[in-house]
């Protein structure tokens, strides 16, 4: 399921970036922001539990899975914290203490942090299971 999250997240980010760049070249801002609609692709990841159904009567999650998930969540939030920190500090150093940025960046930073958490969480799960997933030896 982590693979599905990684693939949908990457697809969403790439498709959105391409759309925003293309729309920016054609219509300029703020219409280019409409390209972010492709972030909806990441929502396909939410269908994971429906696609990968649990087998009844079989243990599908134990203490190791819980530990891996907890570590992955920490990695996800840690990465998002670093990203938000960097995004907050870069304008300060680039524009200076008297500079200003548009408030439209704020929801984008919020969304970016969410995507980053989601992505880093999934990658951390894959790394801990060794890329081949739970079924790999």
């Amino acid at each position, binding site marked *: 399921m982590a693979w599905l999250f990684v693939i949908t997240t990457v697809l969403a980010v790439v498709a959105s970036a391409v759309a925003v760049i293309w729309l920016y070249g054609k219509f300029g801002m703020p219409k280019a922001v409409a390209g972010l609609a492709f972030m909806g692709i990441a929502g396909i990841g939410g269908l994971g539990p429906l696609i990968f159904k649990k087998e009844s009567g079989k243990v599908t999650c*134990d203490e190791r*899975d819980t530990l891996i998930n907890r570590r992955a969540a920490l990695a996800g939030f840690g990465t998002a914290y670093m990203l938000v920190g960097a995004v907050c500090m870069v304008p300060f150093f680039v524009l200076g203490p008297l500079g200003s940025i548009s408030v439209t960046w704020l929801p984008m930073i919020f969304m970016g942090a969410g995507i980053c958490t989601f992505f880093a969480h999934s990658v951390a799960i894959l790394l801990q299971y060794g890329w081949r997933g739970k079924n790999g030896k």
Partner: protein
Amino acid sequence: MANSELKNQIRRLRFENGEMTQQQLAERAGVTRQTIIAIEAGKYAPSLTLAFRIAHAFSVTIDQVFQYEEEKLQD
């Protein structure tokens, strides 16, 4: 500086218990087969509760399944 490692006899005990499969042991211990694979390979140190459950699955004591080894490394 000390480096600690948890050794286990799961593989040997499985074969001594009628060539028990990893899946059978997993079912008895109430975990996934992947967790048994990870423990057997020394990649995951189980909780005390799980260690007891594994020992009970083999009807042996916990120290017959797991051995704690501390290696002293020279700096």
